């Protein structure tokens, strides 16, 4: 499970050392808050949430802020068929190429399955910003696909 959690963290914190430190901090919190686990959901899901929160805190510590509000949604064309053919490593490389703000919102929404309301709450931004950032992230991914020649 630790390896899986490190993988989750690395989607937010690209630096390996920072990601490992974040993983350790996350586990410290897991042990500290173990009595708070109610057993309502899966234990892995509970740990995953803690790790995501810890990763976001790590980003806040190292980066200035999450993206400023840009409420302009981009009209995206349908995604390239190539995106459906990518392997795990290629997907990770593509996501890691995004700027921190876009990457964070895209990962939270597309990979972790958070809603825009939850993202807005987590990152202290508006839902509109979350949506616009997701649109921009998608557009960038499309562009990066060409740039990286995946």
């Amino acid at each position, binding site marked *: 499970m630790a390896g899986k959690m490190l993988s989750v963290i690395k989607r937010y914190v690209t630096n390996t050392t920072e990601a490992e430190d974040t993983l350790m901090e996350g586990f*410290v919190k897991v042990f500290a808050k173990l009595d708070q686990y109610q057993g309502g959901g899966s234990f892995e899901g509970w740990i995953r949430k803690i790790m995501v929160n810890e990763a976001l805190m790590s980003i806040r510590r190292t980066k200035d802020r999450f993206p400023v509000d840009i409420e302009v949604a981009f009209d995206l064309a349908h995604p390239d068929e190539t995106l459906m053919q990518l392997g795990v490593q290629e997907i990770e490389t593509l996501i890691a190429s995004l700027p921190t703000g876009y990457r964070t919102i895209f990962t939270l929404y597309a990979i972790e399955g958070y809603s825009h309301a939850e993202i807005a709450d987590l990152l202290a931004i508006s839902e509109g910003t979350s949506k616009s950032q997701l649109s921009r992230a998608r557009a960038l991914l499309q562009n990066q696909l060409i740039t990286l020649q995946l």
Partner: protein
Amino acid sequence: MKNWNSVEEKWREQLQNKSEDIPEDLWSRLEERLVEKPAKRFPIYWAAAAMLLLAVGLSWVWNEAPESTDQITHPLSEVKKASAVRVQVAASATQPALAPSNAREPKINQANVEPSSPIAPMLAYPEEKPQAESIVSTTVAENKIEPEEVLTVRLDIDPVADEEEVKPTVNQQKRRKSFFGKIVGEIRQALDGETVNWQKLKEGNANFENRIHTVANTYVKTEENLKRTLQIQ
């Protein structure tokens, strides 16, 4: 035609179970961190204990504060007492043939006084004997206070203390004088052979009961009168 939701869903499935190799020392580092955690809490407990101790100490000091205030005001009351005593002594010094020595104090009891003596009724009075004892004991107390009188002279240098404290002392002295005269009158009445209610004299007179120097001066005067009476006899 695919949309982004289907792409993201596929990516999610692919990445869901992705696992990375964790560093070998992760668990040992984590163990160290978890051991460190309680160690960090100890200072908090110590700090709490120190705070508690400090609070107890402060409350103790706080409770002690009024006592210290009393101690501060005490010398002032001593000044009052001492100045009163000083004035009293000065007043009694103007009396001729004052004999303050305790060494020459005659033993006053009913055994060595004849029943025919003019003071016999006074001594025969049941309340008189304890009073004579209290007079003697208060005279001893008066002698003990005298060294403090020297200490209070330094406090008298303070003009504020003098102004504030001497004025009421003079009034008290006047009251004492009148009371003193009353006592002398009672003693003369006793010497004339009339019955004197000493208890009545004492009742309602806080000065008589509380002020040692007044009683002591009364004793001195009584002693003087007794001597005179015995010489007459």
